[in-house]
């Protein structure tokens, strides 16, 4: 079932990523971690569908935000990040997904691990934690190319300053700030051991990123003693259209 959402705000997160706020009449509400499908249809009838994670916390107002990273060779993301205007309408299907989600009644410690724009559904979980008043401890390990590529930087900073049980660790893969304690590089076993919940705490781990990132991180988590049953993953990548 396709719904129509109206663009009510646009906000650039980085030089290549934009958050789009939509108001969707009769939106049934969502859970942190879910996504929507967006369908664009050209005048000649050609249409393209892409999935985007919801970034915003659940709410009752029929409002949702998605953050879209522009892919240089993309068919949909350049339009959404460069041409879309306030007042435009988008076709949406969702909310989608009931497994890669965090629900406020969960009380176990939560470990979030993001690769690049994989931060988006994890941010919705963090925002859901805040809006629900949950006191569950959250840790976020955020692998990102360079400081300028970080999404939601100020909000994450404010959250970790304000609430000692939401901790954020950045793992820069290409360029790190001056005097950063760790040289740029991918997440490795030592970083997992030093910055994530120990495996005996019964935490649930949510891992979102490109396929190679998810495979690498889940391998490290399992090697570190985490049960595969406590690891939830979502992979993204170029999909294209098949119909």
């Amino acid at each position: 079932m396709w719904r129509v959402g109206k663009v009510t705000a646009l906000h650039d997160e980085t030089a290549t990523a934009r958050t789009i706020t939509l108001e969707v009449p009769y939106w049934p509400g969502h859970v942190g971690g879910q996504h929507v499908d967006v369908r664009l249809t050209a005048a000649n009838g050609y249409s393209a569908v892409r999935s985007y994670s919801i970034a915003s916390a659940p709410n009752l107002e029929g409002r949702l935000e998605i953050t879209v990273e522009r892919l240089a060779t993309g068919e949909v993301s350049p339009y959404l990040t460069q041409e879309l205007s306030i007042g435009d309408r988008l076709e949406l299907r969702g909310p989608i997904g009931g497994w890669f989600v965090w629900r406020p009644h969960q009380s176990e410690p939560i470990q979030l691990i993001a690769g690049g724009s994989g931060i988006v559904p994890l941010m919705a979980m963090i925002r859901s934690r805040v809006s629900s008043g949950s006191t569950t401890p959250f840790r976020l390990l955020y692998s990102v190319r360079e400081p300028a590529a970080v999404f939601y930087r100020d909000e994450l900073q404010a959250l970790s300053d304000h609430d000692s049980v939401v901790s954020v660790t950045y793992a820069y893969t290409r360029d790190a700030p001056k005097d950063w304690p760790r040289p740029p590089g991918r997440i490795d076993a030592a970083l997992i051991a030093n910055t994530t919940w120990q495996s005996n705490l019964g935490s649930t781990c949510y891992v979102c990123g490109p396929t190679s990132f998810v495979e690498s991180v889940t391998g490290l988590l399992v090697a570190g003693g985490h049960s595969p049953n406590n690891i939830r993953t979502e992979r993204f990548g170029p999909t294209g259209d098949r119909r």
Partner: protein
Amino acid sequence: MSSNGDDYLDGNAVAGEMTEIFVMDVTAAEGQCAHCATIKHFAEAHVYVKCPGVVARCAVCGEILLRLAYVHQQVFIDVRGLTYLSLDRSLLQEYGR
């Protein structure tokens, strides 16, 4: 037969188009692989979409669990790789469907 390279996604990636077939969320559904008997959520399946349909493979043994093929206005669903698929009816209410 196992997955080669990183040219796959997972069950979350096709959950939207699966709503054209199933009225309930399939990502949280548990399915048993008919080949190796592993029971996992559909979200955990390795899903190949760079083809004229969808192929979902078992994350453990790599055998095919489910295939969708689109031919004109028909969709063909081949589920012989699944012994069963178990959906949670309580989720119907949660998502307001």
